[in-house]
């Protein structure tokens, strides 16, 4: 009989990035409520730390014409109208207050000349809207939440991974996991659980995501019977590093383009002017001159085409590369150094505005971005899909189980705008914490089925047994993850076809078989091989969800591009695709009609389309 460390919390938050920390802080603000926070890594290291550009919120400090209505309309347009309109409304209304909260907790944003929070331009946002700190906004945000959060009486469980949720009837009542340092099992009892585990990028070969992004929350929710939505929508960020190979995928912030950076092909041409989508024509500059003026704060100018939405820019880059007009290592050129033609002290200006980017290229690629163009190409960056939640409370379809941030679906629809992620974490992290606390107050601790716990514990240790009982070392986990990454990149990547995705399902089935007999050696202390073996089933089941949802959506929309169905279809704009675990354990794919938008929101969208 295995031994367990036991903890009881009223609210347990799984994941300690921006959304998890914000949820825990909110829940802990309720007097007497015991809140636990599980981090897979050390506190303050979660993927939020890598966010660069900024937090989108209609503070209107730089352009007074901005308002929640414009932000709402921009978010819906960017998401191609399959977003949850209610989440988009709440997000646009509540983001400014959440940014001010951060400032009250010690965040130090860059300032305007009047001493207000400075806002920068970003793709798909009509006005300068991103509150930022150079290009390290995510670090500022997570550190502020961390430094505030450690004084709120939250119990933090560092380097701890949850492998299964526990239910009592329909309701979620606890979680089972292990501490990564010593490998000891931990049993959490909780009246409400918030998932804030981020994304799935580690299922792809080229990604900007850290190792933690192994679809844990998506899989925990799915396995416990919760619905997932919009899983076909994966965002490929247009500008990742492509050279040297070992750093391929690392993000190059959109802020480079916001500060005047331009994309060129091998002929030196600014190709983004060649293809401007109809619904963005009226907002896009028609000359290089106008685009430059926009980046320098001219309120009369329209934005340059480099700042169109990420899905579109990524596809234009792919087109240039396919047509043989790419850069030497298979990308295109992103040039910020050219602004020396326009402004004095350009090199200093670039270093001040984009310090991390300067540092990153200098150190990893021996390249000075103030004198030389960068080579960039698309990188797997974000999943718009996730746990289907109530837009107001963030509760999933399983009572007591909440989700916020990247692992939840709804706000971003088919494509997320840059900057809307950090604000998403704050707005919906706060809401999830609030409503999870309210739910917990009305409950007593549920009953944990110890027989089930014992059986999960046994399963968790199985990879060790496969070595000792058979006497021969079975296949290790790293190779399987590597093949998964290659297959997802190749078959369910930026450009998709039915044929390739069906073959991806076959490949995933084979990998599941291999993962079911994966073996690891050594002991339970900080054993990365063992950890990876336990992450594999999560990545595999969620890769299947992405693939099945992508097969079902026979059109192209936002981050989902089908070579066999290249147009956007009105009929497909009327529903979301839901993935759930069927009664027999088979994955079900269901179309769910999007609720009718209220007249006043429709009116806002119509007004903003002018």
């Amino acid at each position: 009989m295995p031994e367990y460390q036991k903890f009881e919390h009223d609210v347990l938050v799984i994941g300690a990035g921006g959304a998890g920390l914000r949820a825990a802080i909110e829940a802990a603000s309720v007097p007497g409520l015991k809140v636990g926070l599980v981090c897979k890594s050390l506190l303050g290291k979660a993927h939020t730390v890598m966010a660069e550009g900024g937090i989108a919120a209609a503070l209107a400090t730089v352009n007074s014409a901005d308002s929640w209505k414009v932000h709402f309309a921009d978010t819906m347009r960017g998401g191609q109208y399959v977003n949850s309109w209610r989440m988009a409304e709440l997000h646009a209304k509540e983001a400014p207050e959440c940014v001010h909260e951060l400032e009250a907790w010690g965040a130090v944003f860059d300032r305007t000349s009047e001493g207000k929070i400075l806002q920068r331009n970003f793709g798909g946002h009509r006005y300068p809207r991103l509150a930022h700190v150079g290009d390290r906004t995510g670090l500022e945000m997570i550190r502020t939440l961390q430094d505030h959060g450690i004084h709120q009486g939250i119990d933090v469980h560092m380097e701890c991974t949850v492998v299964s949720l526990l239910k009592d009837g329909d309701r979620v009542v606890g979680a089972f996991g292990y501490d990564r340092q010593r490998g000891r099992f931990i049993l959490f009892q909780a009246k409400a659980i918030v998932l804030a585990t981020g994304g799935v990028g580690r299922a792809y070969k080229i990604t900007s995501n850290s190792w933690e992004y192994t679809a844990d929350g998506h899989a925990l929710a799915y396995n416990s019977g919760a619905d997932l939505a919009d899983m076909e929508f994966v965002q490929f960020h247009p500008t990742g590093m492509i050279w040297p190979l070992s750093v391929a995928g690392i993000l190059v912030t959109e802020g480079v383009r916001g500060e005047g950076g331009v994309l060129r092909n091998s002929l030196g041409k600014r190709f983004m002017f060649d293809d401007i989508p109809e619904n963005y024509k009226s907002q896009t500059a028609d000359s290089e001159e106008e685009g430059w003026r926009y980046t320098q704060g001219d309120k009369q100018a329209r934005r340059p085409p480099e700042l169109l939405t990420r899905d579109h820019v990524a596809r234009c880059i792919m087109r240039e590369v396919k047509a043989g007009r790419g850069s030497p290592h298979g990308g295109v050129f992103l040039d910020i150094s050219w602004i020396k033609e326009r402004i004095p002290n350009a090199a200093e200006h670039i270093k001040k505005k984009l310090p991390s980017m300067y540092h990153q290229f200098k150190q990893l690629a021996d390249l000075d971005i103030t004198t030389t163009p960068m080579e960039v190409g698309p990188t797997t960056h974000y999943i718009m899909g996730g746990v289907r939640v109530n837009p107001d409370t963030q509760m999933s379809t399983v009572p007591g189980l909440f989700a916020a941030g990247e692992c939840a679906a709804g706000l971003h629809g088919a494509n997320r705008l840059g900057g809307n992620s950090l604000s998403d974490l704050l707005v919906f992290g706060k809401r999830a914490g609030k409503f999870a606390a309210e739910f917990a107050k009305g409950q007593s601790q549920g009953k944990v089925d110890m027989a089930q716990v014992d059986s999960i514990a046994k399963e968790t240790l199985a990879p060790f047994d496969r070595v000792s009982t058979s006497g021969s070392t079975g296949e290790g986990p790293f190779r399987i993850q590597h093949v998964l990454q290659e297959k997802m990149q190749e078959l369910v990547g930026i450009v998709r076809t039915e044929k390739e995705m069906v073959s991806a399902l076959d490949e995933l089935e084979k990998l599941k078989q291999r993962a079911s007999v994966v073996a690891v050696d050594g002991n339970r202390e900080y054993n990365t091989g063992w950890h990876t073996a336990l992450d594999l089933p999560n990545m595999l089941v969620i890769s299947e969800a992405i693939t099945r949802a992508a097969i079902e959506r026979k059109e192209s929309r936002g981050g989902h591009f089908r070579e066999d169905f290249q147009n956007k279809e009105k009929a497909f704009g009327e529903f979301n695709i839901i993935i759930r675990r069927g009664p027999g354990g088979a994955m079900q794919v269901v179309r769910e009609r999007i609720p009718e938008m209220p007249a006043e929101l429709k009116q806002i969208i119509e007004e903003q389309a002018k």
Partner: protein
Amino acid sequence: MSSATFQLWRGSGADGKYTTYTTDYQEGMVVLDVIHKIQAEQAPNLAVRWNCKAGKCGSCSAEINGKPRLMCMTRMNEIPVESPVTIEPMRAFPWIRDLVTDVSWNYRVKKQIKKFKPRPPDNPDGTWSMSQEDVDRVQEFRKCIECFLCQDVCHVLREHNLHEEFVGPRFFVYVAALEMHPLDTENRLEELVTAKGIGYCNITKCCTKVCPENITITDNAIIPLKERVVDEYYDPLKRLFRMFRSK
């Protein structure tokens, strides 16, 4: 494709030793890539802590040929490979396994430092006004990614083991960021002397040299804090004033 030999510190508890691995590496690879390669091909249970692999999270701190560095930001072409490259865990913290140490002491120390306490909002809408000039200094300190390399290299911690009396460079930077924050109203100077041991620092600047974020820890954070402490506690006039006030 080149090849290099590495001596990795492996084991746990009292049982640690160098284990030798030879592996190929490609142009542009960083040390962490090589560690991952060894892990995938030769040593699947090799313990290594890392996260972002982009120099932003500060998880993969280690001692490469004896120098505290981030493995993800150290390119292979920066280090000599004629003789074996040694990679060890940070030595100023309790060892867990292989390249991983227990850095939880840092988290306990931070919790003991008085938190940010802003002045009342400047504007009716609950916001504050600050000029960029006033926040520049604090923004430098807030670049810290908490890799704890400055703690690792500091002789007060590393050689003298004064973890109970001295908080280390990281937390002087943290206190400086709070003390110099334009909105903060808290006073942390007394505890700097009594509980944080700022007097132990004899400004050898080792911390500044290893900081991957190029924060000028000694000159911009520690020395100004020492000066404030002197002004507040060792200025004869102020001392006199305090004596009267306390009566």
